[in-house]
């Protein structure tokens, strides 16, 4: 199982994630773009992911809804800008709880010499503040400090 790396340089609007998979690029691409398989990996196990729309081609829309056990829902949507099998998907990403804060995501798959596949996922935010907000909301291990600060606030609840 490949190691997850997460790069978020201070003062930049970008987050870059890399992860290696023990499977061919074709298979990884197929799984990543299959609406039937997406609920099985896209969200955390604690939440149910519902695929409202997933029209995987340039100009197509996607909309996923995550539901927790209490019935709270968190919805996300965006548009596919480019879908190039088996190497690249470019799309926008917007959390509906924070409308107008749109992220541009580029996912690239590279075949490795040993038959594995390297996934690189880059997210470009509209501002550094937007990116740091996402980081502090727990997206990244790399920003553990600001997250822990928030964690301490939450403990007071």
């Amino acid at each position, binding site marked *: *199982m*490949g190691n*997850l790396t*997460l790069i978020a340089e201070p003062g930049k609007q970008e987050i870059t*994630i890399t*992860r290696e*998979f*023990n*499977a*061919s690029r*074709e*298979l*990884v*691409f*197929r*799984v*990543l773009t299959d609406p039937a*398989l997406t609920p*099985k*990996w*896209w*969200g*955390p*196990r*604690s*939440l149910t992911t519902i695929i409202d729309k997933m029209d995987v081609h340039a100009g197509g829309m996607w909309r996923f809804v*995550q539901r*927790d056990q*209490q019935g*709270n829902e*968190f919805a996300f949507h965006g548009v596919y800008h480019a879908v190039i*099998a*088996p190497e690249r998907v470019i799309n926008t990403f917007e*959390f509906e*709880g*924070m409308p107008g*804060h749109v992220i541009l995501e580029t996912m690239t798959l590279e075949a490795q010499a040993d038959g594995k596949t390297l*996934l690189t996922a880059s997210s470009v935010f509209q501002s550094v*503040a*937007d990116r*740091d*907000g*996402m980081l*502090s*909301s*727990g*997206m*990244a*291990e790399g920003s553990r400090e*600001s*997250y822990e*600060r*928030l964690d*301490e*606030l*939450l403990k*007071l*609840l």
Partner: protein
Amino acid sequence: MISTYEALADPTRRRILDLLRERPRVVGELVDALKITQPGVSKHLRVLREVGLVRVRQDAQRRWYELSIEPLAEVDGWLASYRHLIAERYERLDEILSELQEKENNDGQPNTDR
């Protein structure tokens, strides 16, 4: 109306919350600690009050700003769901990939891309 998420997205506002977590403070203390102007601090406090993360207690002489954590309950669901999202997402992908590879091996069929 700004959302709690937007209020928390700003590093200065998170710093203010940190300071208020220690104890209630007056504006002057925040100005000193943050090294930004009073109008700047007031602007951030206004945003934090708008989303209910900060409330004001009026003393005889002074206005104390204090932390109000109720809105964070709303954020908690989002935080909890996001915390390990990335790592967990890829672990789940590993599982699906292994299952599909096993199935293909059993079927004796090569991987075919659509």
